[in-house]
């Protein structure tokens, strides 16, 4: 039997939550994602930013924009399929209307023992090319050593006045 070396390893939810708290995030606008399940459960329990559940990612882009205009400091939490589902609002609101839109995206159905290029899931393989096509900067969190990506992406969203994405490559712990 051959040992399989994981390419991506999960980050404890409390580690990510502490980073989000340090950024001063006021609201998490969320469509549920299995890769961020433990993190979402923490926020839903009332620990940290106010949790705002929405039905679709299109809704989330609008709510995020309204919160920003109203002087709050929101972020979004969705999965890879949600990016594909919300390209129109990503274009019209986050990009064209210059709304800082910091998004954590779970790589739903990603095999953590394979690289992104080796994945059988088209959604996993096409996430980054899709973001590249729209000029959306993105970072990977493939393990605890990548936690700094959150601050980098958050700051980029505010510097650019547009979207930025952190890709969660393994289920949070």
């Amino acid at each position, binding site marked *: 039997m051959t040992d399989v070396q994981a390419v991506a390893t999960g980050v404890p939810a409390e580690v990510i939550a502490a980073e989000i708290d340090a950024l001063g995030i006021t609201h998490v606008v969320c469509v549920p994602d299995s890769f961020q399940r433990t993190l979402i459960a923490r926020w839903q329990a009332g620990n940290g930013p106010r949790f705002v559940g929405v039905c679709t990612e*299109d809704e989330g882009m*609008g709510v995020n924009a309204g919160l920003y205009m*109203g002087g709050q400091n929101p972020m979004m939490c969705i999965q890879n399929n949600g990016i594909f589902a919300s390209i129109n609002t990503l274009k019209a609101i986050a990009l064209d209307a*210059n709304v800082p839109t910091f998004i954590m995206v779970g790589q739903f159905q990603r095999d953590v023992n394979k690289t992104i290029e080796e994945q059988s899931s088209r959604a996993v393989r096409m996430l980054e090319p899709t973001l590249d096509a729209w000029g959306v900067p993105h970072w990977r969190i493939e393990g605890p050593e990548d936690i700094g990506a959150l601050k980098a992406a958050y700051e980029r969203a505010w510097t650019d006045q547009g979207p930025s994405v952190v890709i969660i490559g393994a289920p949070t712990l």
Partner: protein
Amino acid sequence: MERQEAIDILAEGRRGAISVPTMQSVFPWHEAGQGDILNVDASQCMGSASTIGLGLALAQPSRKVMVLDGDGSLLMQLGSLVTIVASGVNNLYHFVFANGLNQSTGNQPLPGQGAFDWVALAKASGYKHALKIAEAEDLLEQLPHVWELEGPVLIELTIAREDGPARWAGVPMARQVASVHEQLATS
């Protein structure tokens, strides 16, 4: 009622509310002098007026937020009715201009035109209040009372068909976003 009649009554009775018009209500809203620092148009993101309004309502609970939605637009994010209720906001006033048409693209009939009921949908979603107003004089009479209701409130406005080309205000949304943010983030 005519769209312009409804717009004029809402403009006159706005009471300083933050406004989020969309599609064919944007141009007359600006013509009525309402494209100010507390207004943002949902022009290039059909369907998003209700959720932009929700975000503003969450961010500014002491202010009233009025969404000037369209029936075709709201159908695009129909789940937002549930999202709005689930959020717990009580300061959102949702005016739905209902003509049964996708007017901006040439007056094509909406799917299910005439077969669904906005008031019933809003109430079933948990809106605190929902009512239908068909005549301009009724809107004029009832609007002051609407503002006294606890939200979320949905008002279905029966709007007559309009022909002619679509009209747009042409104000970049980015400029409005920056203006509203500057106004509200510092207030």
